[in-house]
């Protein structure tokens, strides 16, 4: 009986520590909600349709930030997904082991680069190049709503490119894991039927489609929450615009820029409300993507 005591202690300790995780996640939701209440009470649903963010008159509407976040993240995913998936397919299906392992390693390195370093590179290297690109745009394109605006370099395009670069390694490694989970039998069956490598891979991809979707969604979740790199290159202007040349603003960036000085409680509460929504949205997207991946690997 005496020997049971350490086991019970051990069991109790690990249960307590595991519960800590639950406590922390719940605490985040609760604390954010409490601190966002003044803003929620004041603005209600209009917070999400309002386009005016005016600290002077204490009138806060978050639509420009939602727009900027969604636009930059979706554009980033559109750019990143083909490259990430193509890389995953190449490494998982076509590359010989002596090539595959170093490639996996390189992709891991890409994922390990801190966001601030991407931001630094973004300001001093990417933005001037994008500015040159924008200056060289033909006038016909300049007229269209997607490219109108002065060529600053800073703006949605730079942010989306930077986000895409940051998301690619993330999505690629998850997609590679997903592909590795496809039973060999699938591909072998295809080859037995006389398929080309492309057609065999296509069969595997079809089998893994929900997992692939999950990998892309995880990338989206990552892009939605990215703060520093975006804040350094997006131009920090709360404006809703179709133009990728225009500076815009994202939810994460506005919190980072304005949090330390929101002097009035309502201002601070409005920023916390944005944080709360960011939390909820990334929660849903991540849960959905994990569900997709899980459903495929079972």
């Amino acid at each position: 009986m005496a020997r049971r005591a350490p086991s019970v202690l051990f069991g109790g300790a690990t249960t307590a520590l595991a519960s800590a995780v639950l406590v922390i996640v719940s605490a985040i939701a609760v604390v954010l909600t409490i601190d966002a209440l003044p803003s929620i009470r004041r603005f209600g649903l209009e917070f999400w349709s309002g386009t005016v963010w005016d600290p002077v008159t204490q009138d806060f509407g978050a639509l420009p930030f939602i727009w900027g976040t969604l636009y930059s993240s979706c554009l980033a995913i559109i750019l990143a997904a083909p490259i990430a998936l193509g890389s995953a397919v190449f490494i998982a299906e076509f590359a010989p082991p002596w090539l595959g392992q170093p490639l996996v390693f390189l992709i891991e390195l890409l994922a390990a680069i801190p966001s601030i370093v991407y931001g630094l590179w973004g300001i001093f290297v990417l933005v001037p190049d994008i500015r040159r690109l924008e200056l060289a745009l033909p006038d016909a394109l300049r007229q269209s709503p997607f490219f109108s605006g002065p060529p600053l370099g800073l703006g949605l395009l730079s942010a989306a490119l930077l986000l895409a670069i940051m998301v690619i390694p993330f999505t690629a490694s998850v997609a590679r894991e997903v592909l590795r989970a496809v039973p060999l039998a699938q591909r072998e069956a295809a080859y037995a039927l006389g398929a080309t490598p492309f057609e065999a891979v296509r069969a595997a991809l079809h089998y893994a489609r929900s997992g692939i979707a999950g990998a892309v969604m995880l990338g989206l979740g990552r892009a939605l929450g990215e703060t520093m790199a975006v804040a350094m290159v997006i131009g920090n202007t709360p404006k809703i615009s179709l133009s990728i040349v225009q500076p815009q603003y994202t939810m994460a960036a506005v919190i980072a820029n304005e949090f330390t000085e929101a002097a009035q409680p309502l201002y601070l509460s409005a920023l916390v409300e944005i944080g709360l929504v960011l939390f909820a949205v990334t929660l849903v997207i991540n849960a959905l993507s994990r569900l997709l991946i899980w459903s495929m690997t079972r």
Partner: protein
Amino acid sequence: MTLGRGRRAVSAAFVVACAAAVVLAVVPLVLVLGFVVGRGVQALNADFFTRLPQPVGEAGGGMANAILGTLTLATLAAAMAVPIGVGTGLYLSEHSGRPFASLVRFAADTLNGVPSIVIGVFAYAVAVLPFQRFSALAGGFALGVMMIPIVARTTEELLLLVPESLREGALALGATRGRAMLGVVLPAALPGVVTAVVLALARVAGETAPLLFTSFNNRFFATSLTEPTSSLTVQVFTYAISPYEDWHRQAWAGALVLIVMVFGCSLLARLTTRRLERMHRGG
């Protein structure tokens, strides 16, 4: 029936496209690293590692306090995340099937996906406001929260990798479950757990957003944990958006040091994992 040339061509084109995708994916690595190393190395000197920041416009400043600050924050984060993370990993591997375990796993994965800026807001509300001060502890808390899910999930996976025979052997010899876990399985998985911690540290050492309003910044060395502290990431950010040439150079140097730290940890982690995988395959 032979393969039609059309289908073979499509297949070849596909392989080429995928190879091109890999090249495109890796090109930014070369570009970013190239610039960081190129511009950073020029700005690295003894001053950078030993001196404090100088007033604007005066040369010879360094990031000694920022480097120490990042190490301090990483240590604090690990102190918080290792017990909770490893404990959670132990729990999850032991009680894998239970609904509570699934709930904990879900919570850990959720926590992993929370944007770091949101963690920063949470840490401000919980660790800064009630004490009315910015502090290294608050910064360590924010980073610790981010580390927990990484350590927990990786520990769980590594514990599951340890051969069942080890655990069963211990139980057969009369050990309690607790002793089996702590005395036999955990030590076997220890290199992996250390890997998990190192990987998690690499990830949070590069974070900036949650530190902006928790550990804040400090022109000097922080003399106590309840003081604000400088950190490499926040310092690089502050310098990058300034108009001063000297600060820009120091920002590149700081980025280089950050990359070396982070890559060093990742490399270490990778080597250890490879050894563990080989061990598992062999055992």
